[in-house]
């Protein structure tokens, strides 16, 4: 037996010895020390990007990488929100200051792609057309819908484009808004409504003319109009022309270094919008070298092929492991770029990310797990960043179902929500209680309509016919499979039980099921939130229009939409804000959503990082970020 035990000891010590062997050759320098010395910024970036093609992706994490590789017309300010610095455009101005519908961007002449190819207005025109091409199916094409005819092109609105040229078209086009020009997935299987009138081929149109029952028109549309539309569509379809030839696209290039953008309506904050990566240029020559314009996921974004115009170029991309960028010597402002490179790590696990930071493996984390905030406050107080973020967390209500079809019930639930208690005790991330829908903006009035008022809530609920919660059905609260979402749900469950006597059943689901159920209005209450896409209140308001992709509450209001329309026509920024605020108040008085808090971003930042300032959208322009050991 003894010999046997020896054998056991030997195997174990061999194992240990081999581990110790590995130890030699490792110096005492931590990962971050080394990176700081080399000027490489180490960033936790939550997940592997879907792609590096600005026209395909739609996430925040991709933005972090893409904004290091590409540069748009204007650039974010490193410390001020809503301020634009020159990017590819040296200067920009609306043709008419009073009515900013047409904008001119003067591009810098020395702008170059990283392969030395000059960057001209033509590249922008190509990029705009590319992202709008229906076949590319970009999720985010709507960000360009401000440009004249962009929407019509992207959605292939054939009938509209054909008929608007017709001077003696019998009716207002507006009156045809109920026609299924686009696809209608609720239509019956064998009807052309499912495909959409504008998308029918010549053959299908001929078939339809022969057999009119194949397409259901709204009753109000006259025979004459129907035939006219069909005829024109057929004629066009047969001609073999493209929709692109039909439109009068708003973006043009008067000369190679001037970009002219004509919009549907005046837009004073267009430069803000162009900071978004959907407006970034892509290299026409490089994209076409690796595939067609409308092809997704071609090889042009591969590490060895990617051509870009930002402060950095792609150095390596190891799938699911890291993406590293390095200095772009061809960048117009290369001498002012502070970092030698950035390494993005797809760390999905929040705890791992924090522990990597604690172990000096990261300069900045993507976020901070709420469970670790307490620990970070104790041990890493200097590194802990808590910044306001342009986003609102809210609970959607299903206004098509009892009891939330009654606005009084919605209001009661909103008023009973003890926002502060939840923030202070569950989230602990320094979030602000949401007083309205739109987070605080400079110049935009706070709605200040959402308040914790349990007594008022009880009264309202009683008025709605549920005194003390009696008669309330079981309410299903839909949320995702995350620990924090569950904790918030449990806290609200207890709060609503206490103040309203309501029985809440928490239903957790993984992400896609949750979204699907929410979109199908298969819920009573559902957790939700919205992060602003650009620095304007509109990004929070236009989603509540009828049929907008993210409404999903079943709520709609003509009045609300009219105010928004009015606002879009307003030329004066102040008037516009007043109108938007009016819309917000109207919305809040109906309370189809129960605002909980305004987001804040909690993350850890290493002391070596300089020039990294709090920003509402959290887009930190890479060229200013600096690493320096004090």
């Amino acid at each position: 037996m003894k010999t046997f035990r020896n054998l056991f000891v030997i195997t174990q010590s061999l194992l240990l010895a081999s581990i110790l062997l590995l130890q030699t050759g490792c110096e005492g320098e931590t990962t971050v020390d080394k990176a700081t010395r080399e000027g490489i910024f180490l960033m936790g970036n939550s997940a592997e990007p879907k792609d590096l093609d600005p026209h395909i992706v739609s996430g925040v994490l991709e933005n972090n990488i893409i904004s290091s590789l590409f540069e748009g017309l204007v650039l974010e300010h490193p410390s001020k929100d809503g301020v634009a610095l020159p990017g590819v455009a040296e200067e920009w101005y609306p043709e008419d200051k009073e009515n900013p519908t047409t904008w001119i961007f003067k591009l810098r002449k020395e702008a170059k792609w990283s392969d030395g190819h000059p960057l001209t207005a033509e590249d922008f025109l190509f990029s705009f057309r590319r992202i709008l091409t229906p076949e590319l199916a970009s999720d985010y094409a709507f960000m360009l819908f401000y440009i004249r005819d962009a929407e019509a092109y992207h959605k292939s609105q054939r009938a509209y484009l054909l008929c608007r040229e017709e001077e003696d078209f019998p009716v207002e086009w507006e009156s045809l808004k109920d026609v299924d020009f686009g696809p209608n997935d609720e239509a019956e299987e064998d009807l052309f409504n499912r495909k959409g009138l504008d998308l029918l081929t010549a053959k299908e149109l001929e078939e339809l003319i022969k057999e009119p029952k194949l397409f259901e028109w709204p009753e109000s549309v006259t025979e004459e109009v129907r035939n006219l539309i069909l005829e024109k569509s057929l004629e066009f379809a047969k001609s073999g022309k493209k929709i692109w030839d039909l439109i009068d696209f708003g973006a043009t290039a008067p000369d190679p270094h001037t970009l002219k953008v004509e919009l549907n309506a005046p837009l004073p904050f267009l430069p803000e919008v162009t900071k978004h990566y959907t407006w970034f240029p892509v290299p026409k020559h490089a994209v076409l070298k690796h595939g067609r314009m409308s092809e997704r996921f071609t090889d042009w974004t591969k590490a060895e092929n990617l051509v870009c115009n930002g402060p950095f170029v792609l150095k390596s991309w190891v799938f699911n492991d890291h993406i590293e960028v390095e200095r772009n010597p061809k960048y117009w402002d290369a001498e002012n770029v502070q970092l030698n490179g950035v390494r993005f790590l797809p760390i999905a696990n929040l705890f791992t990310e924090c522990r990597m930071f604690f172990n000096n493996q990261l300069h900045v984390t993507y976020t901070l797990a709420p469970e670790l905030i307490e620990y970070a406050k104790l041990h890493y107080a200097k590194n802990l960043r808590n910044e306001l973020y342009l986003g609102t967390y809210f609970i959607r209500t299903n206004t098509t179902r009892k009891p939330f079809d009654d606005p009084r019930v919605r209001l009661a639930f909103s008023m009973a929500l003890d926002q502060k208690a939840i923030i202070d005790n569950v989230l602990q991330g320094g979030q602000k209680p949401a007083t309205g829908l739109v987070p605080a903006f400079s110049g935009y009035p706070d709605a200040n309509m959402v308040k914790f008022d349990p007594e008022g809530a009880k009264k309202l609920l009683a008025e709605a016919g549920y005194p003390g919660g009696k008669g309330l059905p079981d309410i299903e609260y839909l949320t995702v499979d995350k620990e924090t979402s569950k904790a918030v749900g449990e806290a609200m469950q207890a709060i609503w039980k206490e103040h309203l006597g309501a029985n809440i059943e928490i239903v957790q689901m993984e992400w896609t099921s949750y979204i699907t159920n929410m979109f199908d209005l298969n819920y009573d209450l559902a957790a939700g939130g919205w992060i602003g896409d650009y620095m304007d209140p509109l990004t929070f308001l236009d989603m509540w229009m009828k049929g907008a992709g993210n409404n999903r509450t079943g709520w709609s209001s003509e009045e609300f939409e009219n105010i928004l329309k009015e606002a879009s026509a307003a030329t004066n920024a102040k008037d516009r804000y007043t109108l938007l605020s009016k819309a917000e108040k109207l919305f809040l008085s109906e309370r189809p959503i129960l605002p909980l808090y305004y987001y804040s971003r909690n993350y850890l930042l290493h002391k070596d990082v300089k020039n990294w300032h709090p920003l509402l959208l959290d887009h930190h322009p890479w060229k200013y970020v600096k690493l320096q050991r004090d």
Partner: protein
Amino acid sequence: MIRFIFNRFLQGLLVLFALYTITFFLAKAMPGEPFTSEKNVSEFTKQNLRKLYGLDKSLPEQYFRYPYRVLTQGDFGVSSSKGKPVRDIIANSFPVSLVLGLGALGFAVGIGIPLGILAAIRKNTWVDWGLMGFAMIGICVPAFTIGPLLQILVAANVPWLKVAGWGSPQDFLLPAFTLGLVSAAYLARLTRSGILEILSQDFIRTAHAKGLSPTTVILKHSLRGGLLPSVAYLGPAFAALISGSFIVESIFLVPGMGQHFVNAAVSRDEFLLLGVSMFFGFLIIVMNLFSDILTGVLDPRVRMGKEGA
């Protein structure tokens, strides 16, 4: 032998096809689709996306199209969530999982089997109970507890070990240990009972009668037969180890294959899901076959017929 492998290969093909059928229809039965997003994606864009991935076709057409393209063009489709060909994703992540899995296997075998032998030798003593209790801890304590504990207690205090990451040679140690621990525990139990079974056999008495030392008796005469149950266990277990583990990969930031099983399901990434599932099914089949062959190598009686007499 060749006939046996050929037979199993044919059966394997049928298994793969059945697996494909089930996975395909399960994937279709999940709520939502790859393009479900909280962003405002219009029905029009979705239709274009469906067209792009061939998801607009009728169900039977889609059902036959995939195997057709796999078999004729080696095309496993493009992942809708990662924007890369599924073949490349597997080719990129499988080697990582393989290294991790082999490391885990190393730990499992290196810890589990010696402990099992020790427990068998000291049967029904405190050594035995202690070791089996330890094995029970390995089975009870989930990876999401062991992993972070190792990060906090080990990685944070050992300068040359990183909390997470993949790249330097020592990076595989912690994740492989975490991954291998459960298998080590199972192996310890299986080895213990396997050896005890063999130690009660007559030929062990013969070996003692020859005057061999106890170590030789254990190592030469009882280990081979005593390992048979472990080998049978290791077949499918190894397939599971080298196809990665979502939890371990997530905790230690390992770019392996396990995360695709979860991510593909959550993002309704049909082709990636089919790809990794079929690959896993293939591994299971191969490993089961391999473990059957290895059983034959260890036990010469199995090679010839069922039993000698």
